């Protein structure tokens, strides 16, 4: 066969990956604990 699989599924950036995964993290990819920050 002439199979070809795209491991990125067209997602060009890590922010696209996170958005596709339904994540809504601080600045897109930061784990941020407000209590810790205080």
């Amino acid at each position, binding site marked *: *066969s*002439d*199979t*070809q*699989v*795209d*491991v*990125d*599924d*067209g*997602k*060009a*950036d*890590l*922010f696209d*990956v*996170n958005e*596709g*995964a*339904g*994540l*809504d*993290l*601080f*600045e*897109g*990819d*930061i*784990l*941020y*604990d407000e209590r*810790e920050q205080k």
Partner: protein
Amino acid sequence: NSIIGDQYKWPKTVPYYLQDDLDVNAKGVILKAFEQYRLKSCIDFKPWSGEENYISVFKGSGCFSSVGNRRVGKQRLSIGSGCDRIATIEHEFLHALGFWHEQSRSDRDDYVTIMWDRISEGREHNFNKYNDSTSSSLNVPYDYTSMMHYSKNAFRNGTEPTIVTKIPAFADVIGQRMEFSDSDLLKLNRMYGCARSSTFLDTCDFERENICGMIQGPEDQADWERVSTVTGGPTTDYTNLGRCTGHGYFMHFSTVSATSGNKALLESRLLYPKRGYQCLQFFYYNSGHTSDQLSIWVREYDEANPNGTLRFIQTIDGPPQNLWQLHHVSLAVSKKFRVIFEGTKGSGSSAGGLSLDDINVSETMCPEHIWRVNNFLSVMETTPQGTAIYSPRFHSKYGYTFQMGLYPNGTIDYPGELGAFAHLTSGDNAVDASLEWPSAWKQITMMLMDQNTDIRKRMSNQRSITTDPTQVIAGSTNFYWDNPRKVGMEVTEADGTKYFRGPGLGTYVYLTQARARSRDFIKGGDAIFLLTMEDISHLVPSQPLPSTTTAKPNTSQPTTAKPETPKPETPKPTTTSKPSSPCDKVTCENDGVCVLDNGGVAVCRCKVGDDWWYTGDRCQFKGSTQDWIVTAVVASVCVLAVMLIVTITSVVCLKKKYKKRMQAAGDDIPYQHAAV
């Protein structure tokens, strides 16, 4: 920009633990990212061996990290599905090391305009900025090329960009995820006080007259000369390719008038290895006779041989050609040494000689195969969209044959991109028949080389894929990485050679064409792809835990993350049994860690927070500052009660005693006076 506060810094050697749930390919790419840190900074990484704080890398739903060392013991960093790209991993680790995104620095409004009305509703918080009392840009100018910068379309609600650069030329530059920029490295090295990088040894483009401290060999009959052009070729160096008047030097050994057998030795300065393996990379131009030769030697020094001992490494297979050829030579040196380039005049007549430029020596593994695509700009423009070109077939040291497929002009769905796919191919019949199929855990890396002179400043673009022996072809029962003769298609090359090409794994968004045109990805018109196949089956078993603790790091998800689809069970190679340890018999609860004390006795080190802790020989009890307050109050009340009882008892006893005494004496002194 970096978070301010020494408490957020890690030690220069960062302990890490790769969780079991990570994809095997991701584990391999994480180790490649660590290698880039070692090459370009003084940051090193070591497997967690019980240190109080460490980075636990796991497969969450997405790619994310905290900023800085939060000193929470196990600090999580997620490399989820789709995050196993070296630049993504480097980006997340820069967060962990203490860096925010570039466009959040305090002076960002001087350099970019945030288009607030184009941002998706509720996502405006992603464009916060920090004042310069909480973050520092470490005295480095705003960096559009930072790998920590958002791209122009980040969090947009339509088709218009959310970030507009004040200098329009940088509109498509922001958001690069190829490699560390120069400023990324400057900031990292400033923040951690790096004086030198861990695995870099030397680089030389011969632009300075001191030729990087190289010396002419003492036992030869001719010399290498520093020149900018040679009549018989090359006419320019490789560093600048003649673009800068007054610059552009290389080293040349003329074989025009030399006597047959004459040698010219060019020796590097003294180098001090740490790892015991090195890669020598250089560009070589042979305009001499076929019989002229370049050989690589090393001169090793130790106490017994203070003048050095010569050791032959290899002769370079580089026949005369009208181009600068790229060569790699693997070295294995563990003593102080010099690299020696030995030119030898052959038996034939020559109109030129041997030339060297852009030398790099680093303690890294050499790439195995080179695919040079000539006139790459034209190839990008003239190849029909959706059409792939293929590299030659390369033979790996494991016996498998593979090649790279490249879409130079993108595809209909992804125009303006380069697509890159790796394929196994059929090789020699007898060899293929002797191999294990499906191929297991072979990681193929495809790197488009940034041909910058200095290896530390390169932003090469690389992607890796790994042959998972359990992967099947969609809609079929065939294994994806089975023998290409079984699952591949027959192809015929231009010269009539026939072979089988197996299914491909890769990406349609390898690199944008615009970025491929930038930097030194194309030099002298050519692009250079470096290809390697590595066995990474050793990454399939779990990373050993420190002193065999039973407190295994868990893989909890952030509350915003979706649950992860369970990974199918995959057969894992058997691992050798570990030697028994006193910790084998000790179970530490509540994330405690078993360590051996000075006497070799296993003890649990319990987890501790700001106002809580675990205690007990197995960390089975939890304590907190609140518990202490309760304990103190209860204890005080008890002491008070006991004192009251003692006082009352004493008073009653005394009263009885004096009453009896007074009765006996017939005395009528009032009791009250006696008590007083």
